[in-house]
């Protein structure tokens, strides 16, 4: 198991809603997305699969190239593929942007 954190200080847009999607089943993950009390975005990942820090980094770089909300993102991961990670993140964004 590995814990990974990222910061995206440029994500400053005020967010008011929160979202929770997904389940920590095999090959899946859950994500919590909630407003950050300060500017910037923080990502906290707990994953049962070690050694994929770079893959997580590129997924989130891509995600925050389009999303600019000041949020805290918490993830529990049981081996989701980068594709599923992005899908879960998009689902969470859909909830808070409704």
């Amino acid at each position: 198991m590995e814990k990974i954190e990222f910061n995206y200080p440029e994500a400053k847009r005020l967010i008011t809603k929160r979202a929770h999607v997904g389940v920590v089943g095999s090959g899946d993950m859950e994500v919590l997305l909630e407003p950050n009390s300060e500017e910037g975005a923080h990502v906290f990942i707990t994953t049962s699969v070690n050694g994929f820090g770079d893959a997580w980094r590129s997924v989130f770089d891509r995600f925050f190239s389009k999303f600019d909300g000041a949020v805290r993102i918490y993830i529990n991961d049981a081996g989701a593929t980068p594709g599923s990670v992005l899908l879960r993140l998009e689902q969470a964004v859909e909830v808070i942007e409704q």
Partner: protein
Amino acid sequence: MSASILIPDFVNRKSFIELDARARAQSLFDEGTWKELVGPFDRIESPWLAKQGIAPQFDDGCVVIKGKIGGSPAVTIAFEGAFQGGSVGEVSGAKMTAALDLATKDSKAGKPTAAILLLETGGVRLQEANLGLAAVAEIISSVLALRQHAPVITIVAGTVGCFGGMSLVAGVSSYTIMTREARLGLNGPEVIEQESGIDEFDSSDRALIWAIHGGEQRVGMGLADLLVEDDAGKIAAAVLSCVRKGVPEKHRTEQVELYRARIAALDTSSQIDPATLRQQRANTKGGVR
């Protein structure tokens, strides 16, 4: 010609089994009356899984929702079968016990609060072994305390089923609702095959598994109460009917002599045919319900 004539029922039906634990629990309440307690945003996770390199879940696979059903206060506690097989850990078990205890507190204070347990679980989470087993004992105790004041309704919908220690929780419930897709038993077929051999139970024999543990059989045997289609609306209606019935005059597990006599009458010289046994039970409808 209207569309309803062309489209058969099962197309319009909203499957309950396909919903996750949270959506299942929500679907049982009167609209706009419910609130989730100690949900994922509270992030009370298992303290034991991470120490073993296993990713936890923010709600530990247990969803607690309080609200109203048919206008009456109720709490639903749902296990998520997709997380660690719906297993009972320290946190998920404590959630169920605590919610039952609070429902008892309200019920004793003159506000009868029914509990609905959605059990999709293989039983104790072996990574938390003794705290899971202790939690099951505590859940059983808290169900028994509540059911004196308000009904405790177990739903086993599928597809994980309800096995291990949690099957005792179904056993002590006031009412048990099952679908045809659900299974209920103390030991799953794989466990029996492993412990007692393939001659005792061939766990690849799907027909045998359903004949013994399946919802239709359990309801037919009188060990569960209602067989309901996998349809969220029909399951909600079944729950409502149990809430309205209230506390049964006598609970099944209190009728020891009746059931003890049935065991005494079993011929155990060879394996027991499930269909024959069900037929016998149907012919000798004992029991209060």
